[in-house]
């Protein structure tokens, strides 16, 4: 797309007159603010944005964006968004979903959209709970989590959204948090990186559900702990973390370990490589419950052709090769015979 003269937008241009109706304190507010703030910087036309969602608290998102939008049905946003993008590849399509919407009922659609590499930006608000239906466990809820539907604790082994996305070969996979009171706030940067990726971009956002799963991610967002429990991924750079940046992550054969920078040189640490899917997969399994920092930033980024581009290319190629079809040609396209008067 040529960057012709664009109006100068501000975050306010991306608001609507609809009252935002999340619970006070919900992490969704921070994400909404970040998205509204990032879009004006992207130099795309406002009327070309389409926000698509499913059903859930998070999926109310489109109502609060002054763009085109579809609040779909539960779990089906990836399919709706694929239809939008297939029909008009020029549009900037964003998809907002939750851990229930995107990974429970909608896991299959998400998987197929990602593997097809439809050029859509996916924001998965992971609060490890069903918010809108008032507090049942979700596919990312931790084992043993007591919720309305699991009074004796969840017995499901949770899914890791990043591992899932890598397993189905998404071309851009990233993670960040809704807020960050203890370190760098990378939400905006990750959103921009996703926006600039040509292909499916999957972003897991740790999001606080203030009502039904409060503080689930405080370890990763609060001042005291954030720098100890998270590590920022930067392509080509070593994995260093800690409030004093005194710790690092090292590769030992195919396993990872935390080392102290007192004892190990930075050069011996693991250097992040966004293009390596197996490395990204390895990183996706790090959990602060096992004493490992959880990576934030871009796990994986590679280039593959986009679905809608190929779809359009085939149509154009067919037109080129066989000539543009019209009604007359269509109707006479088989072998015919004539009956006289």
């Amino acid at each position: 797309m040529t960057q012709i003269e664009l109006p100068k937008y501000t975050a306010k241009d991306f608001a609507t007159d609809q009252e935002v109706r999340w619970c006070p304190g919900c992490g969704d507010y921070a994400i909404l603010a970040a998205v509204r703030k990032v879009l004006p910087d992207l130099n795309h036309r406002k009327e070309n944005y389409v926000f698509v969602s499913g059903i859930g608290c998070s999926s109310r998102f489109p109502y609060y964006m002054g763009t085109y939008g579809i609040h779909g049905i539960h779990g089906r946003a990836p399919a709706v968004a694929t239809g939008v993008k297939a029909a008009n590849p020029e549009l900037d399509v964003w998809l907002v979903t939750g851990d229930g919407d995107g990974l429970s009922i909608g896991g299959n659609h998400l998987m197929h959209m990602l593997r097809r590499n439809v050029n859509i930006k996916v924001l998965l608000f992971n609060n490890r709970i069903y918010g809108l239906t008032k507090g049942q466990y979700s596919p990312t809820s931790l084992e043993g989590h007591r919720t309305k539907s699991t009074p004796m604790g969840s017995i499901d082994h949770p899914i890791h959204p990043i591992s899932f996305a890598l397993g189905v070969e998404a071309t851009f996979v990233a993670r960040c948090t809704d807020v960050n009171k203890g370190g760098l706030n990378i939400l905006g940067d990750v959103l921009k990186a996703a926006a600039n990726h040509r292909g499916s971009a999957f972003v897991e956002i740790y999001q606080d559900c203030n009502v039904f799963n409060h503080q689930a991610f405080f370890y990763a967002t609060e001042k005291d702990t954030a720098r100890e429990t998270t590590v920022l991924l930067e392509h080509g750079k070593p994995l260093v973390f800690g409030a004093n940046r005194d710790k690092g992550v090292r590769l030992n054969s195919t396993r990872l370990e935390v080392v102290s920078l007192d004892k190990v040189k930075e050069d011996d640490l693991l250097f992040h490589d966004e293009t390596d899917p197996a490395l990204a997969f390895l990183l996706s399994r790090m959990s602060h419950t096992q004493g490992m920092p959880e990576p934030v930033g871009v796990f994986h980024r590679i280039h593959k052709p986009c679905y809608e581009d190929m779809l359009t290319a085939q149509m154009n190629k067919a037109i080129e090769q066989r000539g543009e079809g019209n009604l007359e040609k269509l109707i006479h396209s088989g072998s015919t015979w004539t009956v006289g008067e």
Partner: protein
Amino acid sequence: MNTSATAANRQFATETLESAVIRFCGDSGDGMQLTGGEFTTTSAVYGNDVATFPDFPAEIRAPAGTLPGVSGFQVNFASTEIYTPGDKVDVLVAMNPAGLKTNIADLKGGGILIVNEDAFNNNNLKKAGYASNPLEDESLKEFRLFKIPISRLCEESLAETGMGAKAIGRAKNMYTLGIVYWLFDRSLEPTIKHLTDLFAKKKNQPELAELNIKALKAGYYMGETAEMFQSRYVVPKAKLAPGKYRQISGNEATALGLIAGARLANKTLTYAGYPITPASDILHFLSAYKNYHVKTLQMEDEIAAICAAIGASFTGDIAITASSGPGIALKGEGIGLAVMTELPVVIVNVQRGGPSTGLPTKTEQADLLQAVYGRNSECPCIVIAARSPGDCFDAAVEAIRLAIKYMTPVMLLTDGYIANGAEPWLLPQVGAMKPIEIKHATEFNGHSDDADGEGNNVYLPYLRNENLARPWAIPGTPKLEHRVGGLEKAENTGNVSYDPRNHQRMVDLRQAKVEKVAQDIPPTEIQGESSGDALIIGWGGTYGAIHAATERLLKRQQKVGTVHLRHINPLPPDLGDIIKRFKHIIVPELNKGQLIRIIRDHFLVDAVGINKVQGKPFLVSELVAEIEGIIAR
């Protein structure tokens, strides 16, 4: 070769027939569908009216020689207009014992029975469950049996080609077709041309084209020289409406109609589907027509397909999805979203035998109530049905036209019978087809109370026009940014609303909009009497059988009239008046009574159903008998 000249060399008794029904049957591997298709095309090109019924097994390739592996193709060709493939068979061609066993019951007494004698070996007889060889006992004595060692004769005549035994074995269907062509004095040319196109051009195997053509001719000469048949038959040309024709199956006609609709609207067509028998061919056809501005998406399932269609519709494309029973059941929630967002989407349901997975390759008409009522809450959508293979074209265009005019989903019902069946199709005049007008919103259409100044300064996505349709602004249009979704919408603004009165109003509006379609329904045509003893109300793929039955009843002086519905929801506005003019109301359906439920409910008339749920179309004779029975009550 000039076959007709050759045929003239010897003298045979020639019988002229008004019509004839031939059924080719044999193993799935025997190529019966191709054989039947060729005979049909040749007859159509010659000038007969034709109607066909392909019937193939559910398995991809059931074990050779078994009963479930039998594949059949029936063609009725005539010098008069015909509407069905025929109840009973005049000529049965059976390539193996299993074929004979499953089909012999449909052969008329005295009918011609041509069998491939070579296939009646012990092994095959056993697989077909014959204790003794029927060719050698008395069991077939009521038929004119022609035992021909087709395999051997075909082999011998192709021996010198030097081709492999497999290819030669496969050519025996063309040899057989040659025999039948001779019997009915048909030209070999169309088939020769088709074989050349198929093998030499498309598949780049000219040696196979040659082989099959050789087999075809050999069979023909066999008929000529073997002095086996005492007479030949001639079915003269029919008086058909003049014009250009082609053979078309329902699924192909549906595909063409959908493209035509999109072309008439000057729009890209986005089709999102998921394979399912018997609807898959719509996807196959469309994906071969990409140069007509067609995009085909094979999605991961049927839910994804309807949802992608909704996304494409929101974006301004002509959006289509198609499926069959189980897949349509899955789309229910999605269709609800289309109803709520008031987006035009056409959903084609090629009905098949059910319930559940049911009888995937068999026909049925049992998804009508699902189409009308099968979604949560008050969720009306327009429902129309196609009546014959060629009619699928018109029905598809109509579906797109209504969807756009009323901004709402339309369900188009076809069925396995018309989808797979083919008929000669009189090509429509392009000039006569009305363009489909789409005016996407590009400007504000309302005034906000909050705003200063005058004139329009907001876009109201749920404002309505005289048809109660809402405007259609598409992404990329500056200033008209808006959001749609499945929650109840406030009138005009389209904002989420939980207001009780607004909900009532919107439920009423959506219903009223669908009812408005009545204004588009032309006066109902009645075949036969416009008042009298019995009104027969049909819909969908039973048209041919009902039409033929009505003709026969009229000939028998019965005072019957027949209407065949294209529009099911809403019903034609004049139907109530017509109903009042008849004593009996009869509704034949290939289900346990579905349209009849709606007729009884709407018109409070004690309509009587004729129902059959056997995966097969009505026979004309059974309809005639049943209807006469009801009239005589």
